C-alpha cells in the first residue's frame, strides 16, 4: 500500500467513524503534508489506517447524528408485477430530511424498479408514493447524451429549473469538484471514462438542488478515491437536510446509512 492508498483508506475510516466531513478533510490533508515533507512509510509513521483513525476520533470526536427532519419520501405498499412474476411485494420505505436510506437486495429483486416507481417513471400495480419537495433522480446508466459536453448537460438541466447558462455551468462544475472531477474540459460525454460519466450523471441529479435524491447504484466505475468523494458528497447533502435513497449492493457501506430497505426478503417497511 503506497502513501496515496493509505490516505484513501484513512479517509474512508474517518468517514465510517462519522468524523465531520470538513474535519476529516483537514486531518487527511495534514497527514498528506506530513508524509510529503517528512517522507517515510505511512504504516511506520502513522500505523494502520483503522488504528490512526480511531486515535483521531478519540482526539476530535465525531459529529452527532443528524436529527431527522420531516418526512420527505413515503412509499407504501408498493407491488409490481411483470407478467406473472412479482418483482416487488408490498414494499414500503419512509425517508426523512437528513437521512440516507439504502435499498439493498440480490440482483433482479426489484431495487431499480422500486427507485423508478419512487421517481414516478414507472407505475406500480399497487401502492402509493408521497414526495415532499423537489425530486432528483440518477439512473444506473444512460442518463447522459453522448454528443454533448459536460457544460452543455449542466445548461440543459439548469434550463429546466429556469437557471441561466452561466450559473448552471458554475453550479455543475462546483458539484463535479465535490466528486473530485474537473468538468471544465471540452470532452464529449461519450469520450468520458465509465466512472467520469457516472460522475456527470450524478452531478446532473444534484444540480437542481433536490429535496429528495434517488440514486441507482451511483458509484459504478468509480475508483477508491471517487467512491470516498461520493460518500463525502452524500453525507454533506444529508447534513444539509436532503433525503437520499441509494440503491446499492455494497453491504460494507450500510453502516453509513440511516434506513435500510432489504428487498431480498420482500419485507414490508424499512428497518431503521
Amino acid at each position, binding site marked *: 500500500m503506497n502513501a496515496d492508498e493509505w490516505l484513501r483508506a484513512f479517509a474512508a475510516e474517518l468517514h465510517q467513524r462519522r468524523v465531520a466531513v470538513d474535519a476529516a478533510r483537514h486531518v487527511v490533508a495534514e497527514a498528506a503534508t506530513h508524509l510529503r515533507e517528512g517522507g517515510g512509510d505511512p504504516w511506520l509513521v502513522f500505523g494502520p489506517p483503522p488504528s490512526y483513525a480511531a486515535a483521531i476520533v478519540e482526539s476530535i470526536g465525531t459529529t452527532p447524528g443528524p436529527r431527522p427532519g420531516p418526512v420527505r419520501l413515503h412509499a407504501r405498499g408498493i407491488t409490481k408485477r411483470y407478467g406473472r412474476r412479482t418483482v416487488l411485494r408490498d414494499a414500503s420505505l419512509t425517508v426523512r430530511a437528513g437521512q440516507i436510506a439504502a435499498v439493498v437486495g440480490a440482483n433482479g429483486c426489484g431495487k431499480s424498479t422500486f427507485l423508478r416507481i419512487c421517481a414516478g417513471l414507472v407505475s406500480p400495480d399497487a401502492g402509493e408514493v408521497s414526495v415532499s419537495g423537489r425530486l432528483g433522480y440518477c439512473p444506473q446508466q444512460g442518463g447522459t447524451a453522448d454528443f454533448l459536453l459536460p457544460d452543455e448537460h449542466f445548461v440543459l438541466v439548469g434550463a429546466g429549473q429556469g437557471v441561466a447558462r452561466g450559473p448552471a455551468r458554475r453550479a455543475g462544475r462546483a458539484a463535479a469538484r465535490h466528486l473530485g472531477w474537473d468538468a471544465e474540459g471540452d470532452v464529449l460525454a461519450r469520450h468520458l471514462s465509465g466512472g467520469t460519466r457516472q460522475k456527470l450523471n450524478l452531478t*446532473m441529479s444534484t*444540480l437542481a438542488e433536490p429535496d429528495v435524491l434517488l440514486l441507482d447504484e451511483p458509484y459504478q466505475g468509480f475508483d477508491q478515491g471517487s467512491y470516498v468523494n461520493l460518500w463525502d458528497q452524500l453525507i454533506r447533502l444529508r447534513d444539509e437536510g436532503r433525503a437520499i435513497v441509494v440503491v446499492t449492493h455494497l453491504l460494507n457501506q450500510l453502516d453509513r446509512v440511516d434506513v435500510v430497505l432489504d428487498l431480498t426478503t420482500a419485507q414490508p417497511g424499512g428497518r431503521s
Partner: protein
Amino acid sequence: MNRLVTVAEMTLRELARRRGVLLLLLLMPLVFWLIRRDSHVGQSIRALLLGISWAVSTAALFATSAAREIEPRLRLAGYRPHHLYLGRMLGLWVLGLAVSVPFFLLTVFDTTNLRYAGIAVAMLCCVAVAAPFGMLIGALLPRELEGTLLLLTVVAMQMLLDPASSGAKLTPFWSSREIGTWAVDHTDDGYLTRGLLHGLVVTVLLTVTVAGVFAVRLRRRRHLHHVPLT
C-alpha cells in the same frame, strides 16, 4: 420558451457533432438525384425531394431514440413534455432546412424553366412532415432497427405507388410530390393548393400524435403525490 430553445439547440449541437450522419444526410438526397438525373427532370426533382424527406426522417428517428433515456430525468428537472418534443422538432426543422438549402441551389443552377418558389415550398413540406414523422416512429418503436425498417417501408411505398391513386394521398410525403409536379411541369394551381393543404394537415396530424405519445410516456403517474414542503 427558454426551455424549448435550449432543447432545440442541444438537438442541433448533438447532430452537428455527428459528422458521419451529416455527410450521409447530404449524400442520400444527392444519390437519389444523381440516379434520376439522366431521365426526365421531374423524376430527378421528385427523387431529390424523397431523398430529403427520408434523410430528415431518419435523423429525427435516431435523435428521438437517442433521447429516450435522458428525457425522463429532464422531465424531473422541470421540463414539460411539450418542451421536449417541440424543442426537438424545432431543432430538426432547422437541420432539415440547412440540409435543403444546398439542394435548392443545385436545382437552381442545374435546371432551367422551373417554378423555383415551388421547389422551395416542396422542400419546406418535406422537412415539415419528415421531422414529426421520424419522431413519431422513434417514439412508438423503442428499437432503432424496427424504426428504420418501418421508415424504409413507408418511403418505398411512397416511391412505388402511383401518385394519382387514392392510396398515395395517404402517404406522408405526397404533398411534396404534388407541389413538385406544379413546379416542374407547370400544371395548374390546383396541384399547389392540394399539396400545401396535404402538407399542412399531415404536419399538424403528426405533431398532435407525437404530442399524445410523449404526453403518455412522460406523464405524471397517479401513484406519485407531491405534498407541500414542510
